[in-house]
């Protein structure tokens, strides 16, 4: 077997791509320089005094940027299409494009459906009016789908933990030395220092992020909302106390906190588990208050909803919190159906713990602002209870900034998870998550680049996507 080159038989496209990229860079540069040098466009012409739309060099430069960008994207699309068709014939790029086929299909389906029905989809639909938001959403969904399909063993080419002989630190495109039947014949992005496939590890690492980051952010929001609403609404002593606690956690250097929480000795004392007991109870409290505040006057409906929502959640809560043989062992073993692997729970708890005070502060600020509005006064005059006003009047009206912050916070959580992996905290050492892989790869960085760079670019593009998505959402929600 020959080693694969990067672009294989479609190498004739490379000069074209470089040319297009050069044009793009040049046009952007010209655009910036022109906009800095030339005066602003004025709708009213100075000389004639008549109104006219100016089409000066600036507009031309903007057009050139657009054209160069479209040309580059079209070329990239051609690479991907040819890759999907030709597979390994189109080199490493082609092979990767082919392996990622399920992701492309899912992305195309998602975008076509969303754009077709965008007027009926509220804020989500409006996202497709903003190019920045669309790019961000595409990046995020790419990694979400990659993680998801990778988790069901669809994209990966090799077992992410398998070590094949002769492939230690080998460059991208190296063929397997003695392939067995049904094996993929190359290491697409090379092998790491334990001769494992970098490509498969990167894909599996996406799942580590996709399964922890959004859920941890949801929990942080539950904690922040449940505490921030009353703090902002009632003010007074409660607010002083809760704000003091939040500031306490915020003043704590994050890495020190991680080191203190995640070491095996502390885990042995059961401290993270007790924190899980407290933090995971907040969704229960939140939904209890939410339903109870709404249907308090209709006991029948109230009990029905409470039972439907809270009983499964309570069962889930007990199963998650409970771990046989540790300090929190309250359920009989037969009932404990969910077993979260040791490190994950600790990582999850510490990430939620670090994130919730910031959410608390945001919710508190929004509540203090919104409670002065007329509709809140109207509800108070109607005689509504405080919790009803907080959860059904204030919270829905605070959703815009909260959704934007949610996207940003998932990105921040991703960075935090990477930091944990980078310091080898919590997650098992052979875990394929991006932070751990970067940490392993950096030790040989002077000689071998390929083990460290793919997870670094993956993390960068995912967080960038989330930030762009948040930016697009903010822009669109401000248009109302």
């Amino acid at each position, binding site marked *: 077997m020959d080693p694969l080159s990067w672009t294989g038989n479609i190498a004739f496209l490379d000069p074209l791509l470089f040319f297009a990229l050069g044009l793009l860079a040049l046009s952007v540069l010209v655009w910036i320089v022109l906009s800095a040098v030339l005066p602003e466009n004025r709708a009213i012409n100075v000389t004639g005094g008549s109104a006219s739309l100016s089409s000066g060099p600036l507009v031309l430069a903007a057009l050139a940027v657009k054209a160069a960008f479209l040309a580059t994207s079209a070329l990239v699309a051609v690479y991907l299409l040819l890759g999907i068709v030709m597979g390994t014939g189109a080199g490493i790029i082609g092979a990767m494009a082919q392996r990622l086929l399920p992701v492309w299909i899912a992305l195309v389906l998602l975008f076509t459906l969303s754009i077709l029905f965008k007027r009926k989809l509220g804020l989500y639909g409006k996202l497709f009016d903003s190019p920045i938001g669309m790019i961000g959403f595409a990046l995020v969904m790419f990694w979400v789908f990659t993680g998801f399909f990778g988790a069901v063993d669809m994209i990966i080419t090799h077992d992410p933990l398998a070590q094949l002989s002769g492939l230690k630190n080998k460059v991208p495109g190296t063929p397997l030395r003695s392939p067995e039947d049904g094996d993929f014949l190359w290491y697409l992005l090379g092998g790491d220092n334990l001769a494992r496939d970098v490509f498969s590890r990167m894909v599996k690492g996406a799942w580590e992020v996709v399964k922890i980051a959004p859920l941890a952010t949801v929990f942080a929001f539950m904690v922040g909302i449940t505490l921030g609403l009353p703090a902002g609404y009632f003010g007074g002593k409660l607010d002083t106390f809760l704000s003091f606690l939040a500031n306490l956690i915020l003043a704590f250097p994050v890495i020190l906190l991680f080191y203190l929480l995640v070491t095996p000795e502390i885990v042995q004392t059961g401290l993270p588990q007790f924190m899980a007991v407290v933090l995971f109870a907040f969704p229960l409290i939140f939904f209890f208050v939410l339903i109870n505040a709404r249907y308090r006057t209709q006991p029948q409906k109230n009990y029905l909803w409470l039972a439907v929502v809270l009983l499964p959640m309570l069962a889930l809560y007990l199963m998650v919190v409970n771990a046989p043989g540790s300090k929190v062992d309250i359920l009989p073993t037969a009932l404990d159906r969910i077993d979260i692997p040791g490190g994950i729970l600790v990582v999850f708890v510490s990430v939620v713990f670090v994130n919730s005070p910031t959410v608390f502060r945001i919710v508190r600020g929004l509540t203090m602002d919104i409670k002065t509005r007329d509709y809140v006064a109207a509800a108070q005059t109607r005689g509504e209870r405080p919790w009803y006003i907080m959860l059904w009047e204030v919270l829905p009206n605070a959703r815009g900034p909260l959704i934007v912050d949610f996207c940003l916070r998932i990105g921040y959580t991703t960075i935090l998870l990477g930091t944990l992996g980078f310091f080898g905290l919590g997650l098992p050492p052979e875990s394929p998550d991006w932070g751990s892989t970067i940490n392993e790869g*950096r030790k040989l960085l002077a000689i071998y680049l390929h083990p460290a760079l793919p997870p670094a670019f993956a993390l960068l593009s995912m967080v*960038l996507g989330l930030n762009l998505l948040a930016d697009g959402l903010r822009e669109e929600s401000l248009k109302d």
Partner: protein
Amino acid sequence: MGLFILRRVGIMILTALCLTFVVFFMTNLYPNLEKLAKTQGNFRMSDEAVASWLEKGGYLQSTPKKYLEWVGLAPSYQHQAEDGTITGRCITPGMDPKDAPRFCGILQGYWGYSSVFKDEVSSIVATRLSLTAILMFWVMLVMVPSALILGVLAGMKEGSATDRTLSTVAITTTATPEYVSGVLFIAIFSSSAVGLKWFKGTATSAMDSPNLENFLLPVLTIALYGMGYIARMTRASMTEVMTAQYIRTARLKGVSFPKIVLKHALRNALIAPFTVIMLQFPWLLNGVVIVETLFNYKGFGWTLVQAAGNNDIELLLGVSVVSVLVVLITQLISDIGYVFLNPRIRIT
């Protein structure tokens, strides 16, 4: 004003006490102490031997009492062995127990002894902190001006080409954590695989003689991550100022655009970034830990990792006291500075 500062300082001290107590509590949990006893004494110690070793060091008292002793508000523990010799925290070997001071804690300047570096914690923290101070000085020198320029340029004309490009740059830098940008920088500028080899991939030699070759990459790595955030805040503040009534008045009056930006807008737009820069310190501390580990620069962050990784309790406590104090003091400065800069805020 005096009362305001006094109250803020009071809250700060309370926060510092709470935080150090939390760290103290967590580092003094029994499994940690057991590990300490085993690394200090003998790995094959029996449980009884561990207990007696801890008893001798005074580790088995209640946590609040130990904490007060450590801070220096309670007389420190002394252990009387069966043969009558008295040992304790305050008594250095060879000293007569009667001459030893009764109180020896953080307040008295006794920070403990590091079990990993075999040195006084206070001297380790001082040397490491000065190394990190050099790093931080350069980071600030790079980060603050470039972030402010970026933000002001972008916010000057909202929606213009400069604004969009610079905003994209700012977003990209905030999406690049230090361990990603650091790895990228090392890969591009110092690895033999790419072959540029312009800068060094480690900053170990920068501890003695920092120069461009060995210090630029770590400084750039930290500065880049913080820069995007400050730039975005500056941009937001600048765009807000540019839509204000007095700017419109100035424009209608015929004042030239550069003059408007420099004389009317800039001063008001820089109030918000000041707070943001000050509040960046906890994040910067994070970055320092990552970058010092990545570039092997043996400063404060590197010491934190070593202390935490090797269960060096007294050093870890010293490090956390310093970092908590740094964060709290910058918060205090930011609060007070904000009031000074913005005369519209009245404190009652």
